[in-house]
């Protein structure tokens, strides 16, 4: 399933100019410890997290993740969005918790 479809089906808010496009979502990974995400996420995963600082973007790039979803309505600083736009990284948000959005994504992709 493409990121655009996932965004639509889960009702995610798109914070960056790149809303997703046709990048394939291979699965999801939920976590707030960056070393854990670096070690265990897979290429094309959608990363579900409450960490909203700019260092999350390097993790998305390094692991070729499909994008990142900030949960519980958390909003990043404007500079994070700016940098994500420059790097063509899809940044999304939801008012739901990590548990709910992980469950929904799992159902969608299984």
């Amino acid at each position, binding site marked *: 399933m493409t990121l655009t479809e996932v965004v639509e089906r889960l009702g995610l808010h798109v914070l960056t100019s790149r809303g997703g496009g046709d990048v394939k979502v291979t699965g999801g990974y939920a976590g*707030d*410890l*960056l*070393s*854990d995400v*670096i*070690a265990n996420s897979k*290429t094309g995963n959608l990363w579900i*997290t409450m*960490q909203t*600082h*700019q*260092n999350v*973007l*390097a*993790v998305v*790039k*390094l*692991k070729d993740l499909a994008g990142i979803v900030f949960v519980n309505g958390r909003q990043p600083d404007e500079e994070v969005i700016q940098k994500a736009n420059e790097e063509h990284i899809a940044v999304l948000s939801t008012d739901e918790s990590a548990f709910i959005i992980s469950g929904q994504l799992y159902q969608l992709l299984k």
Partner: protein
Amino acid sequence: MVSHHDLSRTFEIKGRDFSKAGSISINIKEILRELGIDPVIVRRVAIASYEAEMNVVMYANKGEMVLRLNPKVIQITLEDEGPGIENIEMAMQEGYTTATDEIREMGFGAGMGLPNIKKNADMFELKSTIGKGTSYNIVFYLNSKGDV
């Protein structure tokens, strides 16, 4: 197949500067990918170099990372100027950390960095002098046993 000549690149890492953190590892990943290195190996190198780079950002004043490549191995060395590691054996254990609360709230300093390097490398040497700094020697074989 790897069809490149020997390569050596040096990168300067600024300690305590989170704004550029990770950029060197992304750079290294892109160099290796462009050279057509096996994606599985690129992934392992990227994880290890990221953890080493973040250790400089979190704990040291500055560091110099060197990427070397020949047809047999990829080597990453890092020398930092910083506080050094008091107990390397403890630092290599998963979950052990000396990170501040501030760093941990950002999702760093979970005590996974050095174990992640060890897991992903074929060889990992760590030396440290208290009050001076820490040096890393991380090696990845381009074929399974490192032989020709």
